[in-house]
């Protein structure tokens, strides 16, 4: 059940270039959040009015974690927040990643940049179930890689500028390794639009089971404003608009039709 809360910052640490991990105290919802869901952070007295959505990157005791990248004014403000700072949040929002219905699949997580956030939480869940997923993470360069090592997954890193790991983007990296991952695979992806698009295409080509977490600019995050639409094609109907904040953010790979003009 989603709740609107005034709460406090527990911790806000830099984990890579321009990337931070924020811990927020929200005891009454930590047990009900699912990987893939997001929360809204509200800002007061700013000429920018929209709340900002962030994926839930994990939970511990009484807290929710998010991992965010400074890309504009609100995320810059966030980077100055210190322990005890009061903020308003609404959580949890949206749907979540679905576990595969089969037992013997290889779970593969594909993250572009700060798209790792929801997949870290999903990895935690899988690990608790005794599953160690394959985790592909790509970034522009080594300084922007949100994590460097991981005990809960088989980690595969890549950088566009060849400064660490595989040289190239994360989709190419995954493609190059596909042959050595035991079939069948179940793939979960989150990243910039271009990466999501490439994954959706690959998913169809390879007939893989794929779930992708999408981003859209959101005004409400609640399913009210009808602003965050994405074109979807489902098995039962023709193309129609779905709301990323309510019907998503997680969609099946084969449902997604990302047209060129969509940001």
């Amino acid at each position, binding site marked *: 059940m989603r709740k609107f809360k005034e709460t406090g910052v527990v911790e806000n640490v830099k984990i890579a270039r321009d990337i931070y991990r924020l811990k927020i105290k929200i005891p009454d919802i930590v047990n009900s959040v699912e990987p893939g869901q997001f929360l809204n952070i509200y800002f007061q007295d700013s000429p*920018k009015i929209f709340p900002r959505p962030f994926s839930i990157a994990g939970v511990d005791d009484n807290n929710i974690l998010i991992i965010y990248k400074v890309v504009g004014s609100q995320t810059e403000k966030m980077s100055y927040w210190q322990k005890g700072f009061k903020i308003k949040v609404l959580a949890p929002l949206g749907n979540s990643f679905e576990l595969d219905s089969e037992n013997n699949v290889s779970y593969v997580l594909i993250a572009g940049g700060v798209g790792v956030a929801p997949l870290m939480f999903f990895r935690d869940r899988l690990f608790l179930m005794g599953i160690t997923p394959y985790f592909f993470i790509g970034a522009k360069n080594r300084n922007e890689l949100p994590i460097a090592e991981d005990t809960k997954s088989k980690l595969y890193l890549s950088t566009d500028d060849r400064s660490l790991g595989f040289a190239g983007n994360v989709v190419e990296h995954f493609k190059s390794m596909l042959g050595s991952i035991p079939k069948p695979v179940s793939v979960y992806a989150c990243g910039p639009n271009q990466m999501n698009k490439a994954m959706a295409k690959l998913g169809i080509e390879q007939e893989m089971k794929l779930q992708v977490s999408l981003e859209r*600019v959101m005004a409400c995050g609640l399913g009210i404003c009808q602003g965050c*639409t994405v074109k979807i094609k489902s098995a039962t109907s023709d193309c129609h608009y779905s709301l990323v904040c309510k019907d998503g953010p997680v969609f099946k790979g084969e449902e997604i039709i990302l047209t060129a003009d*969509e940001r």
Partner: protein
Amino acid sequence: MIDLNTKLGNRLSLSNPILTASGTFGYGDEISDIVDVELYGGIVTKSLTLKPREGNPPPRIVETPSGMINSIGLANIGVDLFLEEKADFLKIYRGKVIINIAGRTDFEYCEILKLLTEENWIDGFEINVSCPNVSEGGIEFGTDPKILSNLTRKLRDLTDKFLMIKLSPNVTDIRIPAETTQKCGADAVSMINTVYGSAIDINTKKPLINSVIGGLSGPAIKPIAIANIIKAYQVIDIPIIGIGGISRGEDVIEFMLAGASAVQLGTVHFYNPLAINEILQFLEEYCSQNNILSIGDIIGKAEV
């Protein structure tokens, strides 16, 4: 206790002067887990059209200084599905239920009204003649006095329920549509709908919303709303329901001083879903501090 009861003509009374603005609160049920819907004097629903509408292609929204531009394009479930899926919630709702109606033609507006006026749980109608986001219908109804008076008369003949016309600020002189609707028998006018707005990406040179020009809302339009209400209040006697950028209790007082009998909360639901709680508390405080026994006493009291 301050008396917040608000009478909007002979056909509708509210327990307090705060309503929701169409398109910013769904049909009430979508947000009732977060906001206590009973705190409002009433709910104004998302615009309903005769047939469901998918709405405009994305991108549909963009954030602008102290506001946003939308080009949702009246995406809605249509009147049939509305009756099937949303009626149960609204029937047990204790506040007033005002259905916002939009159409392409007089015929469409009238058909919806005929269908809904039979429902005893519906307390009134708000007629959207001012949507900037549809290619046909919408705003022309509100900006051409002849078309507006025709439509208002037809709708008045079809219902004995509260009938309110929602006016557009995208006109040279708001007094003309305001007087027209009063003359044609409307119980109230609500104003303002969104203001024409646009924004361009300087890198791609592309408009930031698909329809190029959309509707601006939020705190940025509050002064425009206040100016229009001051003007309209000078020429009409029917109640004015003020809309436009209301964020806090102070804004509600300002709207009422300008001449509004009640107000609607819109875009604020996106950046402060619980604004209603703070606003009601402020109204109580403001009235008791200023020895105002009934909130209605301040309507139109600005010294303009």
